[in-house]
């Protein structure tokens, strides 16, 4: 086991050995979900606080289940709106929570860098559950676990990430994690949604969907947020989904063993047609299952040990 970190803040920080530790641990923990009594005493007496400043039922629930199956006490603290609205700064809220001695704080916030700031100032472990457009490490880890499970390995695979890469923390975490594990990454989307200097991240950039997905082992579809339209990045949802959405006929260009993935929630009819979302290539639900296992592994590695 090479895991020695106090916090999990980004995929960019992690080395291949550490990623493998998380994936192997998560795999071993998957069996707990199949039991009648889904509980192990491993984190008994540990307190996990979910500090979610952005509303997110899925990720928060996933962390909650993960913590509870490990017998931890999980507290949900939902603060919607910016800290300025609430009048109490993020740091103040976190210090108040720390005064109640949690072992792990899982934080999701709309500001890039917020979890890093908390990690510097809190004694307990901090897990980044998504910060602005920066990173969402547990999502990338569950994506890697799913790919490894289905393909048997990671190195040498071709993954294409399609959609609003510019505003996506999932894309950034996936890019960093996949590159570390030896995957060749291509990003594809309209130029307005590909971030500046993207090639310098070590990925190929394509502006044509068919060519980008032709040889892909895995296609990761990103969610298009409706705000992009009003902000002038794309002319209309209709055009976006016609050109960039995955429908059954676009899949004709793909490998027969391709995997379709999506971090959820899916905008049916926009980035994925319902047939594809529910079709035989889709492993979206496996991602969700693996999400709980990965989060159990992360909580185990961070909360169980004395930490850094």
């Amino acid at each position, binding site marked *: *086991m090479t*895991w*020695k970190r106090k916090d999990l803040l980004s995929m960019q920080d992690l080395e291949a050995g550490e990623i493998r530790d998380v994936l*192997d*641990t998560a*795999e*071993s*923990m*998957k*069996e707990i979900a199949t*039991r*009648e*009594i889904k*509980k*192990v*005493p*491993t984190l008994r007496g540990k307190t996990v606080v979910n500090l979610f400043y952005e509303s997110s039922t899925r990720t928060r629930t996933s962390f909650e289940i993960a913590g509870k199956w*490990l017998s931890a006490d999980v507290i949900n603290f939902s603060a919607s709106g910016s800290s300025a609205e609430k009048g109490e700064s993020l740091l103040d809220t976190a210090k108040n929570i720390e005064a109640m001695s949690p072992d792990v704080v899982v934080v999701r916030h709309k500001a890039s860098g917020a979890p890093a700031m908390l990690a510097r100032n809190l004694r307990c472990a901090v897990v980044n559950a998504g910060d602005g457009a920066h990173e969402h490490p547990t999502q990338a880890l569950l994506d890697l676990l799913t790919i490894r499970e289905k393909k048997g390995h990671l190195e040498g695979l071709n993954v294409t990430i399609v959609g609003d890469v510019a505003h996506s923390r999932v894309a950034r975490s996936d890019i960093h994690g996949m590159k570390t594990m030896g995957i060749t990454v291509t990003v594809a989307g309209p130029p307005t949604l590909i971030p500046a200097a993207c090639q310098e991240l070590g990925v190929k950039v394509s502006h044509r969907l068919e060519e980008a997905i032709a040889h892909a082992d895995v296609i990761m579809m990103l969610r298009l947020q409706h705000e992009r339209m009003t902000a002038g990045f794309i002319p209309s949802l209709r055009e976006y989904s016609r050109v960039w959405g995955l429908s059954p006929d676009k899949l004709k260009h793909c490998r027969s063993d391709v995997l379709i993935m999506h971090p959820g929630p899916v905008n049916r009819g926009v980035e994925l047609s319902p047939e594809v979302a529910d079709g035989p290539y889709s492993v979206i639900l496996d991602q969700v299952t693996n999400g709980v296992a990965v989060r159990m*592994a992360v909580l*185990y*590695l961070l909360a*169980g*040990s*004395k930490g850094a």
Partner: protein
Amino acid sequence: MSVAYREKAQVLDEGALDRALTRIAHEIVEQAGGVKDIALVGIKTRGVTLGQRIAAKIAAIEGGQKPAVGALDITLYRDDLGLKAEQPVVRGTEIPFPIKGRTVVLVDDVLFTGRTIRAALDALMDLGRPRVIRLAVLVDRGHRELPIRPDYIGKNLPTSRRETVAVLLREHDGTDRVVIQEPAEREEGEPQPKARRANMESPSERSEEGEPQPKARRANMESPSERSEEGEPQPKARRANMDSPPERSEG
């Protein structure tokens, strides 16, 4: 913990080890009155291998099907999590059959403090409700810290705390033997065999990297007669609670 160990004595050779497993297989079947409903659950990693071998022997004895063999990883149930610098590696449990109502025989290579078995019992209970749980160990080396006792023993082996017992198996180590190891002064350049530690160290033997074993005596865990100074030959006196054969209880 990287104390170097060297082999002190071999206590079972290939033949003796095999015979011990054969006897255990007979005892299991005899007590259960047959193969029906028996399930062997080996504690990872070598307990699983021993469990496979015992299951094969049971099949040979009764001339029928092999009893089911499962693999149990007790890492998530350890009582010493959070006390170590790094988290122990989780290996995963594979028990692909229901244990409800069955006669489960836990199999492990070395029984020492009993903490591993305590964890295994908790793990089994979370998986279902067996009718009865029994314990088979290849070696019982004493120094129990919990009231746990084995039902089937390959060999009783009195040891001192500073020694370790290593069960080497063909499938893992290329050879079948059981040896006692003791801490060694390392010669320059001489590679030392890795100590085979029990699944969980007893708190009394846990020590910081590089520090010598703590010499402090803990009153309620060791009797004076077994205390030994470094370098002196180990007393061979056996203690009362290990000599008596395991109680045979029916049903």
